[in-house]
Structure formats: structure tokens, C-alpha cells
């Protein structure tokens, strides 16, 4: 019976969709982030925490 339940649960498209979605997104945001044109922007962004001098 356990086998029967397992078979019934079998929705192979579900993990496949998950995997495809994940891999696609991963490729996309990695490419997006590492495009050469963005370098200086990210360097500036990385400095935000250090930019909080008060004026007193």
C-alpha cells in the first residue's frame, strides 16, 4: 500500500518546474549582477553603511 500512495503522489512536473525556475533565476541574477557596467555602482552601494557621519 505504501508504494501505491507514493505512486499516487507522483507529480513529476512539480520538482521539474522548481528546478527549472531556480536554475533560470540563478543564471539571470548572476548575469545581471556581474555585468561589467554595474561595477562602480556596486562599489558605491557597498559603502553605504560607512557613510553616516553626523553634522554636529
Amino acid at each position, binding site marked *: *500500500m*505504501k508504494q*501505491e*500512495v*507514493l505512486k*499516487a*503522489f*507522483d*507529480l*513529476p512536473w*512539480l*520538482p521539474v*518546474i*522548481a528546478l527549472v*525556475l*531556480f536554475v533560470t*533565476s*540563478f543564471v539571470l*541574477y*548572476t548575469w*545581471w*549582477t*556581474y555585468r561589467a*557596467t*554595474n561595477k562602480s*555602482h*556596486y*562599489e*558605491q*552601494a*557597498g*559603502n*553605504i*553603511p*560607512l*557613510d*553616516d*557621519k*553626523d*553634522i*554636529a
Partner: protein
Amino acid sequence: MSSENRSAVRTGTPEKFSYDDQIVKLFVIATLVWGVVALLLGVTIAFQLADFRLNFGLPWITFGRLRPLHTNAAIFAFCGNAIFAGIYYSHQRLLKARLFSDTLSKIHFWGWQLIIVSAALTLPFGITTGKEYAELEWPIDIAITVIWVVFAVNFFGTIIRRRERHIYVAIWFYIATILTVAVLHIVNSLEIPVSLTKSYSLYAGVQDALVQWWYGHNAVAFFLTTPFLGLMYYFVPKAVNRPVYSYRLSIIHFWSLTFIYIWAGPHHLLYTTLPEWAQTLGMIFSVMLWMPSWGGMINGLMTLRGVWSKVRTEPSVRFMATALTFYGMATFEGPLLSIKSVNSIAHFTDWIPGHVHSGTIGWNYMLIAGMLFYLVPKLWNSELYSKKLAHQQFWFATIGLVLYIISMWVAGITQSLMWRAMDDAGKLIYPNFIETVVKIVPMYWVRAIGGTMVLISFIMMVYNLWKTAKAGKKTDVVVYEAYPLHASHVEEGATSHRKLEGWPMIFAALSLIAILVGSAIEIIPSLMADQYVVKVSAIKPYSPLELLGRDVYIKEGCYLCHSQTVRPMPHEVVRYGKASNAAEFVYDHPFQWGSKRTGPDLARIGGKYPHMWHYKHFYEPREVTAGSIMPRYVWLFDQKIHYKDLPTKMRVMQQLGVPYTDEEVLKSVETAQLQAKGIADELAQSGVPAKVAEMDIVSLIAYIQRIGMDYTSMPDEEIATEGK
């Protein structure tokens, strides 16, 4: 980006503003107070496992009731307050804006403390949902939701009023935290109230388990990991005064974590009745989780390049670097544990609490300590009272933690190997479970000592920070200055992703989509579970008395020491009986599979012993099992069965789809009393006074004797044909 070079593209005059640090101070104080409480509770239950006498035969402080209090205090009170302190401090500074509303901040603070206090006032009294890490009952669940919304409004309101266009990566992690925790909490807490202090989970059995561990796993991810990574991305650069090693890597880190974490739930349920493919999927994702985690750790540690000497000299840096190291270790161990073969050894053993604590103590406590050593001198305008004390604290905490981890590895692996040891004839070498318990009790002592050292280290920190704050000098409110954000200020020619990061709501929506898609994929099978779990006619709902007994089981937290699911492995089947089947649990609201076998599995306990055995065992386990570490449950012997709510309970079960007839509901009390009398009559033959029929112990025995009976009494052929 400093304000000077930005002024080139900015128009208008800069605005003056100040930050709300008062609220940060309050959360810092709450962190320290609840930290002591959480650790004290942890040490208490650690000693209780080493020596049962420390349960003192008192209901309110018995292991099963204190353990949920410990986990809730550690996660939601200690870590929760620390997260709020760190977020409120960094959020304002990263956005150059005061928190949206001082009033909301105060409601958030006091509301959260009230929730914690109500947890402390309910859990010891056995008011619990019986779902691990989500034990709080429905009124408190609602309060949590309300306060979380207050937090969210305050948080996003601040983003809207910001004076810094780019949303720094720390805030991305905060956003993911806020959104995900809301979704997790609401979905997992769906329950139908029976009374103010009692409810039943909307889900049952396999489905409940799926939802619960989807929640449990992601609570670790989105309460104990993502917010702390956000804090790491702010406080590590601050502590060493240099930017994060690679901002781009931090972005990859963020998205990968968000995507993978939420999808990796099922590894908590390997080898149970969960569908095979979901197990495999969860496993693959868990292993993939390893990559972004280590990317994050490397990013944090590399930020310290060139200033490594500060690890030796600066307590804040030292604690943060250690936190990152333990984060690396825990996130290496986690995926390892999800590999099927490793998991089959580690699951249900002490290896798991060991792993959990390398995360909570090694990562969360250490990072919080690092953050506080940075924050407290700043907030109270003071110098750290004693670096020496901080370094001593560090060694106490580290050695304590290492003792904890190692003792639990040894205990876990030892016990697991004993459980599975079989001779050539296929017989168990250690058929008596208790042999495997007695063997590891020395390790429980080592763990308790390690935990005590961690507690002492924490108290050292509290003292150190208290002295620091006391020496603080009063200052005027610090005023800051920055340009306001206007639409006209979007820099010309900004690339599309830059705009995206500038649009917090769109960004939040994207994260939400990632989370929801992941959740959906994870949840679909469980929502469809009803269709697939074939109801087997022999599996009947609990009798009214058994239902009450089950509530005693939940109330006493038996699930924290006992599992109720036999895995399909030879040694388990030989030890306990037939492997568990999804159909067995269709009426279990909530499921009680458990996650730790401090005691043996109970899925096949029904009918194993006579009533009298249980009667004696619950009164004094040592009387029937020498060397047992199970607490006594003496109060169940003079606590009357609470029949008042019984019909309501049955009605709620009816609503949940349990096929009780109206007549059964009407006659429930009568039926229950009759069954109780039957058990009492049998006990009377061994000289037990007849009034036992009115006591809780009889309902518990009724439940215990029922567990697994319907399924095991079915002939195998029948199971096979009905399942079709």
C-alpha cells in the same frame, strides 16, 4: 557614496534629522534579559535529561513543558529582540531616516514583550498546540500576527521616507525575513479553537507534518539566518570600518538563499511516510544550500582581510568572526544531515540538537554578542567596561559550545549505531531501548556542563555591558543631514537593475513571488495529500476518552521525547513493528510524529503492555524500567479528567473532517466514562482504587493503548487490496 559627490546630481537643500535610538536601547536590554532566561531554561532541561530527579515531580517544570519554553525563549525572545534591536539601529542609518513612527516602535516593543510573557505564562501550564516551534496557542498567534504587521508598517514606512536611494543588501535580507515569517506563521498556525486555551490544527497527519516542517525549517532560515545575515552585512563592515568584501557576491548570496531555503523543507521528514520524490527534492535543495551559505560566510570573513589583528583585540570583531565560522560549520553540517544515508543515522538522535546549537549558540549568540559589543558603547556613549572580561566570556562560550557539540555527536552516533546493531540472525543486539539510553547519559552530563559554561559566559557579557552602560555620559541628540529623495533625483542613465533596487516595493514584491512560488511548490503536495492518502476503513477515529488522553499527551509534551512513526528500515521494523503508513494518521490533528527519540518510538505501543504496566510506569518509570530518564507524571493520578470541553472538541474534530456522528458527540461524555470505567476495573484487579476512573491517567492509558492498533490489526493482504 558620500553626500558630497552625490550633491552633483541632487537639487534642493539637505534635511536635518535624528535617529530613534531609545527604541534600540530597549530592545538591547530585552535581548539581555531574555537571553539569560532562555539559557537558564536550556541548562535546566539539559540537567533534567542527565538526572530525571530535577523534574521534581512538578508539572510546571517538567521537561516536556519547559522544553517548548526554552526553544520559544531562545528563538523568539532572545534572538527576536536582538533582531529588532539590530534592524532598527541599522535600518535608520542605512536609509538616513528616522523610524517611521515612534508610537509604532513602542507598540512593537511592548507588544512583543507581552507575547513573550504570555508564552511564559501558558507553556508551563501545558497550554500548547503540540507543534514544535509553534507551540503557542491561537490568541497568542493572533497577537504575534498583529505585532508583526506593526513591525512591517514601521519598517516599510521608513523605507518610503528614506534619503538614500539604493537599498543596501542588509535591508534585502530584512525584507525577506518580514515577508516570509508572516507567510510561515499564518499558514502553519491555522487552527480551530476549542476554547481560549485550546485549538486543533487545521491539518492532520502527513499534511500537518508537511506544513509544520515547512514552517520549522524556514523558521530556522528566516528567523535565525536571513535577519542575522542582514545584521552581519551591516555590523561587520561597521566594526572594521571597511566595506563588505564583495557587494555583488552578497546579492547572489541573497537570491540563492531566498530561493533555495524555502524549498528545502522535506528533509526533516526523510524515511517517514512522506512521498519519496519530495524527500529527494528536499535533499537536493538542501545540498545546494551549501553553496550560497558558504559564499556568504566567505564574504563576511574576507571583509576582515587586512584587519585580522582586530579579531584578537576587538571583542566585537572576535565574536563576529567566530559567528561566521560557526555559521560555515552549521551550514555545512545541515546539508550533510539531509543526505539520506547520513540522515538515516542522525535522525531522531542527539546529533540534531547538537547541530541546532552550533547554529543558535555558535552563530546567533556569537553574532549578537559581537553586535552588542559594538552597539552598547555607541548607544550609551561609553567605552567597553572590560575587554579582558569579554575575552574570558569568549572562551567560556566557545569551550562550552564545543563540549555541547562533541558530546551530542558522540551521543547521537553511539545511540544510533546501537539501535541498528543486528546479529547475523537478524536479531537486535540491544533489544532493550533503555540500554541505549543508559549508555549516553554521561554525554548528557557533558552537554549540561557545556551549556552551563555558555550561560556563565552570557552572564559575564550582561555584567560587562551593564557596567559599560552605567559609565555612559549623557549627550545631546545627534543631528544628521542628507538630501531628500525626490523623483527628479533618479540619476540620469541609471541601468534598469539600479532602478529596481531603488524600488523597494517592486523588490519586495519580487522577493514575495520567489517565496510564494517556492512555498507553493513545497505545499502543493501537502494540500493534495487528502486525495492521495487513501483512507483505510479499519482506521477509525479516536474514542472520546482516547481523544482526551491524546490531549494529555500533547499537553505534557511527550512528543518531545517520543516519536510516533516507524521508518521502513529493517532494524526499526524488528524493534517496533510494521512501518508506518500515511493512512494511519488521517485523524491526527495535530500530528505527533516527534523529531527526537529520547525514549522509544510509540507508534506500535498499543497493546504492547497491560494497563497496569503503564499505570506503574507513569507513576515511576524506574519501577518498571531500571535506569529510565523519563520524568514521573504523578499529577496525572489525582488530576480529574476534564470532560467539560469534550463535546466541543468532538464538534471541532467533526468540522475538521473526522467522521464522528452527531450521536457520538452527544453521548461523548457518557461513552468516555464507560471506557474509563473499563480500564479502572482492570486496574482494580491489581489493587488500584476504583476512583482512578476519574483521573487523567486513565485517559492517557486509553490513548496509549490505542496507538497503532487499527493498522497493526489489519492483515497485510487487506492493506494491499484496500490501498488500490
